[in-house]
C-alpha cells in the first residue's frame, strides 16, 4: 500500500502505521490498529519524511 495512517502519541509525537498486504482495507486496518479514541489521518506515503534524523521530534498536525 502506498498509504500510511498517522495518529498522535501520548508524549506529543506521532505514530506512523505501515499497512501490510493482509486482505484488509486501510480503513479496516485503521479501525483495528489505531488505539481506541485516538484521532487519525490516512496520508500518502510521499507525505511522510524519509529523513528520520529527527524522527522523535515529528508532530501530528
Amino acid at each position, binding site marked *: 500500500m502506498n498509504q500510511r*495512517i498517522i495518529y498522535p*502519541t501520548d508524549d506529543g*509525537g506521532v*505514530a*506512523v*502505521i*505501515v*499497512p*501490510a*498486504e*493482509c*486482505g*484488509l482495507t486501510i480503513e479496516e*486496518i485503521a479501525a*483495528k*490498529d489505531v488505539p481506541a479514541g485516538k484521532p487519525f489521518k490516512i496520508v500518502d*506515503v510521499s507525505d*511522510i519524511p*524519509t529523513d*528520520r534524523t529527527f*524522527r*522523535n521530534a515529528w508532530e501530528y498536525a
Partner: protein
Amino acid sequence: MSKVALSGNASGTGTFTIASPNSNTDRTLTLPDATGTVQVSGNPISGTTASFSGDVTLGSSVLATPSGSAPSYLCRAWVNFNGTGTVAIRASGNVSSITDNGTGDYTVNFTAAMSDANYSFAANGSTPGVTNLYTISPLSASPTTSAFRFGTAASSNGVLTDASQASVTIFR
C-alpha cells in the same frame, strides 16, 4: 478371496450412486484394511487426529515429516520490514501492520489475535555494515494478544536506533 459387500440403510430413502469419471484409463480404488468412515471433499476430517507417514503438501509448500517424538509447532505471525527511510514491510504473515512509534521503536499488529499474551517471540534488528544493534523486547509495554512492541538499540550506547533489517516471529 476377500469379498466386497454393499449394504443399504433401512431408515433412509435416498439413492447413493457410484459414478465413473470421464476417463479411458482403468483405475482401482483400494480401501484401507481398517474400520472407519471414508472422508470426501467438502466433508473435512474432524474429531480425529490425522496421521501421515510421509511428507504433506499444503498448496505449494511441503511439510516434511519430522524426526523424533517432540511435537512441532507452526509460526503464528511473522514480519520482515525496513525500519529506516521510508519504513516498509517486505513480507509478512498474519500481520495487519507495523507501527513506527519513533526511532528504533516498532509495534507489530496481528491480523488475527493470539489466544493469549503468553506467546514466544523472537525479534531482531540490524543495519548491516552501519551500526551494531541489539533488540529490546518487549519495549515499554507488555505483549498483548493483538500486538507486540519492540525496540532496536545501538550496542555502543543503548540508544534506540532504526534498523534496516527488522524481523519478528511469534510462536504459541
